[in-house]
Protein backbone atom coordinates (compact mmCIF):
# COMPACT_ATOMS: atom_id res chain seq x y z
CA UNK A 1 0.00 0.00 0.00
CA UNK A 2 1.25 3.44 -0.87
CA UNK A 3 -0.12 6.92 -0.09
CA UNK A 4 1.37 10.04 -1.68
CA UNK A 5 0.52 13.71 -1.15
CA UNK A 6 2.52 15.61 -3.72
CA UNK A 7 2.99 19.09 -5.11
CA UNK A 8 4.66 17.77 -8.28
CA UNK A 9 2.48 16.90 -11.30
CA UNK A 10 0.81 13.50 -11.10
CA UNK A 11 1.09 11.03 -14.02
CA UNK A 12 -1.49 8.36 -13.23
CA UNK A 13 -0.68 5.83 -15.95
CA UNK A 14 3.07 5.98 -15.45
CA UNK A 15 2.63 5.71 -11.70
CA UNK A 16 0.37 2.69 -12.15
CA UNK A 17 2.78 0.95 -14.52
CA UNK A 18 5.64 1.41 -12.04
CA UNK A 19 3.61 0.45 -8.99
CA UNK A 20 2.14 -2.66 -10.60
CA UNK A 21 5.60 -3.84 -11.65
CA UNK A 22 6.63 -3.65 -7.98
CA UNK A 23 3.41 -5.35 -6.90
CA UNK A 24 4.07 -8.28 -9.25
CA UNK A 25 7.67 -8.61 -8.11
CA UNK A 26 6.56 -8.81 -4.46
CA UNK A 27 3.31 -10.82 -4.73
CA UNK A 28 4.09 -12.77 -7.90
CA UNK A 29 2.09 -12.78 -11.11
CA UNK A 30 -1.49 -14.03 -11.32
CA UNK A 31 -2.49 -13.21 -7.73
CA UNK A 32 -5.12 -10.57 -8.55
CA UNK A 33 -7.96 -10.81 -11.04
CA UNK A 34 -9.21 -7.25 -10.88
CA UNK A 35 -8.00 -3.71 -10.57
CA UNK A 36 -10.19 -0.63 -10.45
CA UNK A 37 -8.80 2.86 -10.87
CA UNK A 38 -10.24 6.34 -10.52
CA UNK A 39 -8.55 9.53 -11.68
CA UNK A 40 -10.05 12.92 -10.82
CA UNK A 41 -8.82 15.78 -12.99
CA UNK A 42 -9.22 19.54 -12.95
CA UNK A 43 -11.90 20.78 -15.32
CA UNK A 44 -11.76 24.18 -17.00
CA UNK A 45 -15.36 24.82 -15.95
CA UNK A 46 -17.04 24.67 -12.54
CA UNK A 47 -20.58 25.72 -11.59
CA UNK A 48 -20.88 27.36 -14.98
CA UNK A 49 -17.75 29.52 -14.68
CA UNK A 50 -14.51 29.26 -16.66
CA UNK A 51 -11.61 28.35 -14.38
CA UNK A 52 -7.98 29.06 -15.20
CA UNK A 53 -6.26 27.61 -12.15
CA UNK A 54 -6.67 26.14 -8.70
CA UNK A 55 -4.83 26.12 -5.40
CA UNK A 56 -5.22 22.96 -3.32
CA UNK A 57 -4.62 23.57 0.38
CA UNK A 58 -4.19 20.70 2.82
CA UNK A 59 -3.42 20.07 6.50
CA UNK A 60 0.09 18.61 6.53
CA UNK A 61 0.22 15.69 8.92
CA UNK A 62 -3.53 15.23 9.29
CA UNK A 63 -4.11 14.76 5.57
CA UNK A 64 -1.64 11.87 5.36
CA UNK A 65 -2.96 10.36 8.59
CA UNK A 66 -6.59 10.46 7.43
CA UNK A 67 -5.71 9.00 4.01
CA UNK A 68 -3.68 6.21 5.61
CA UNK A 69 -6.50 5.38 8.02
CA UNK A 70 -9.17 5.22 5.31
CA UNK A 71 -6.94 3.18 3.00
CA UNK A 72 -6.30 0.62 5.74
CA UNK A 73 -9.99 0.40 6.70
CA UNK A 74 -11.09 -0.08 3.10
CA UNK A 75 -8.35 -2.63 2.38
CA UNK A 76 -9.54 -4.68 5.33
CA UNK A 77 -13.24 -4.34 4.55
CA UNK A 78 -12.86 -5.51 0.93
CA UNK A 79 -9.89 -7.82 1.50
CA UNK A 80 -7.78 -5.97 -1.07
CA UNK A 81 -4.44 -7.25 -2.32
CA UNK A 82 -3.01 -3.76 -2.73
CA UNK A 83 -3.90 -0.07 -2.94
CA UNK A 84 -2.29 3.05 -4.36
CA UNK A 85 -3.47 6.58 -3.59
CA UNK A 86 -1.90 9.82 -4.81
CA UNK A 87 -3.24 13.36 -4.33
CA UNK A 88 -1.94 16.69 -5.61
CA UNK A 89 -1.59 19.81 -3.47
CA UNK A 90 -0.53 23.34 -4.40
CA UNK A 91 -1.11 25.08 -7.72
CA UNK A 92 -2.86 23.21 -10.55
CA UNK A 93 -4.01 24.00 -14.06
CA UNK A 94 -7.04 22.67 -15.97
CA UNK A 95 -6.49 19.16 -17.31
CA UNK A 96 -4.07 18.16 -14.56
CA UNK A 97 -4.88 15.06 -12.49
CA UNK A 98 -5.83 15.86 -8.88
CA UNK A 99 -6.25 12.39 -7.44
CA UNK A 100 -5.51 8.77 -8.31
CA UNK A 101 -7.05 5.83 -6.46
CA UNK A 102 -6.17 2.29 -7.55
CA UNK A 103 -7.06 -1.01 -5.90
CA UNK A 104 -6.22 -4.63 -6.67
CA UNK A 105 -8.32 -7.60 -5.57
CA UNK A 106 -9.12 -11.21 -6.46
CA UNK A 107 -12.48 -10.43 -8.09
CA UNK A 108 -14.13 -7.42 -9.71
CA UNK A 109 -16.95 -6.79 -7.21
CA UNK A 110 -14.52 -5.87 -4.42
CA UNK A 111 -12.36 -3.77 -6.75
CA UNK A 112 -15.27 -1.65 -8.02
CA UNK A 113 -16.79 -1.16 -4.58
CA UNK A 114 -13.56 -0.43 -2.71
CA UNK A 115 -12.37 2.09 -5.30
CA UNK A 116 -15.61 4.02 -5.19
CA UNK A 117 -15.91 3.84 -1.40
CA UNK A 118 -12.38 5.15 -1.00
CA UNK A 119 -13.11 8.13 -3.27
CA UNK A 120 -16.32 9.00 -1.40
CA UNK A 121 -14.59 8.75 1.97
CA UNK A 122 -11.72 10.90 0.69
CA UNK A 123 -14.09 13.55 -0.61
CA UNK A 124 -15.99 13.79 2.68
CA UNK A 125 -13.15 13.27 5.20
CA UNK A 126 -9.69 14.13 3.89
CA UNK A 127 -8.59 17.70 4.71
CA UNK A 128 -8.10 19.28 1.30
CA UNK A 129 -9.61 22.58 0.15
CA UNK A 130 -9.84 23.95 -3.38
CA UNK A 131 -9.57 27.63 -4.24
CA UNK A 132 -10.42 28.42 -7.85
CA UNK A 133 -8.97 31.20 -9.97
CA UNK A 134 -11.61 32.20 -12.49
CA UNK A 135 -10.75 33.56 -15.92
CA UNK A 136 -12.31 36.92 -14.92
CA UNK A 137 -9.50 37.32 -12.37
CA UNK A 138 -11.58 36.56 -9.25
CA UNK A 139 -10.90 33.78 -6.77
CA UNK A 140 -13.27 31.66 -4.69
CA UNK A 141 -13.19 28.68 -2.35
CA UNK A 142 -15.07 25.65 -3.62
CA UNK A 143 -17.75 25.06 -1.00
CA UNK A 144 -19.26 21.73 -1.88
CA UNK A 145 -18.65 18.54 -3.82
CA UNK A 146 -20.76 17.15 -6.65
CA UNK A 147 -22.90 14.18 -5.63
CA UNK A 148 -21.08 10.83 -5.60
CA UNK A 149 -24.11 8.53 -5.58
Amino acid at each position, binding site marked *: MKIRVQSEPLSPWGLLADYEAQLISSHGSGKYGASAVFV*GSMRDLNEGDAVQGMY*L*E*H*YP*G*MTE*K*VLQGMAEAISREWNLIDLLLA*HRVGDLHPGEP*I*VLVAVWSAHRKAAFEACRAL*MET*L*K*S*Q*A*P*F*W*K*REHLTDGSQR*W*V*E*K*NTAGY
Partner: protein
Amino acid sequence: MTVHVKFFASLKELMGCDGAAVEIGEMATVTDVWLAASGGKPMPANVLVAINMEHGDVHQAVHSGDEVAFFPPVTGG
Protein backbone atom coordinates in the same frame (compact mmCIF):
# COMPACT_ATOMS: atom_id res chain seq x y z
CA MET B 1 -3.02 25.53 29.86
CA THR B 2 -1.85 26.15 26.30
CA VAL B 3 -3.50 24.72 23.21
CA HIS B 4 -2.33 25.18 19.63
CA VAL B 5 -5.01 26.45 17.29
CA LYS B 6 -4.99 26.18 13.50
CA PHE B 7 -7.30 27.61 10.84
CA PHE B 8 -7.50 26.43 7.25
CA ALA B 9 -8.82 27.61 3.90
CA SER B 10 -11.67 30.18 3.99
CA LEU B 11 -11.58 30.14 7.79
CA LYS B 12 -7.93 31.17 7.76
CA GLU B 13 -8.90 34.17 5.62
CA LEU B 14 -11.88 34.97 7.83
CA MET B 15 -9.76 34.91 11.00
CA GLY B 16 -6.86 36.72 9.35
CA CYS B 17 -4.30 34.23 10.64
CA ASP B 18 -3.41 30.56 10.28
CA GLY B 19 -3.38 29.87 14.01
CA ALA B 20 -2.02 30.76 17.40
CA ALA B 21 -1.03 29.37 20.80
CA VAL B 22 -4.01 30.07 23.07
CA GLU B 23 -4.02 30.23 26.87
CA ILE B 24 -7.21 28.82 28.35
CA GLY B 25 -8.46 27.52 31.71
CA GLU B 26 -8.51 23.82 32.58
CA MET B 27 -11.67 21.77 31.73
CA ALA B 28 -12.11 23.60 28.41
CA THR B 29 -13.97 22.27 25.38
CA VAL B 30 -13.36 22.93 21.69
CA THR B 31 -16.06 25.63 21.85
CA ASP B 32 -14.08 27.41 24.58
CA VAL B 33 -10.95 27.21 22.43
CA TRP B 34 -12.84 28.76 19.51
CA LEU B 35 -14.11 31.64 21.66
CA ALA B 36 -10.65 32.31 23.07
CA ALA B 37 -8.95 32.11 19.66
CA SER B 38 -11.54 34.16 17.79
CA GLY B 39 -12.00 36.86 20.44
CA GLY B 40 -15.61 35.79 20.98
CA LYS B 41 -16.78 35.64 17.34
CA PRO B 42 -19.68 33.28 16.66
CA MET B 43 -18.58 30.09 14.92
CA PRO B 44 -19.76 29.97 11.30
CA ALA B 45 -22.12 27.15 10.39
CA ASN B 46 -20.48 24.01 8.94
CA VAL B 47 -17.12 24.52 10.66
CA LEU B 48 -15.36 21.20 11.17
CA VAL B 49 -13.02 20.41 14.03
CA ALA B 50 -9.97 18.21 14.45
CA ILE B 51 -8.17 17.53 17.74
CA ASN B 52 -4.63 16.28 17.34
CA MET B 53 -5.34 15.58 13.67
CA GLU B 54 -8.42 13.43 14.34
CA HIS B 55 -11.92 14.51 13.34
CA GLY B 56 -13.82 15.63 16.45
CA ASP B 57 -16.63 17.94 17.57
CA VAL B 58 -17.10 21.18 19.47
CA HIS B 59 -18.21 19.47 22.70
CA GLN B 60 -14.98 17.52 23.15
CA ALA B 61 -12.66 18.33 26.03
CA VAL B 62 -9.19 19.61 25.17
CA HIS B 63 -5.99 19.03 27.10
CA SER B 64 -2.79 20.97 27.55
CA GLY B 65 -0.65 20.82 24.42
CA ASP B 66 -3.50 19.71 22.14
CA GLU B 67 -3.60 20.88 18.53
CA VAL B 68 -7.12 22.08 17.74
CA ALA B 69 -7.94 22.80 14.09
CA PHE B 70 -10.97 24.55 12.60
CA PHE B 71 -11.80 24.31 8.92
CA PRO B 72 -14.64 24.44 6.38
CA PRO B 73 -16.10 21.32 4.70
CA VAL B 74 -13.40 19.54 2.72
CA THR B 75 -13.38 19.66 -1.09
CA GLY B 76 -10.48 17.49 -2.26
CA GLY B 77 -10.42 14.64 -4.77
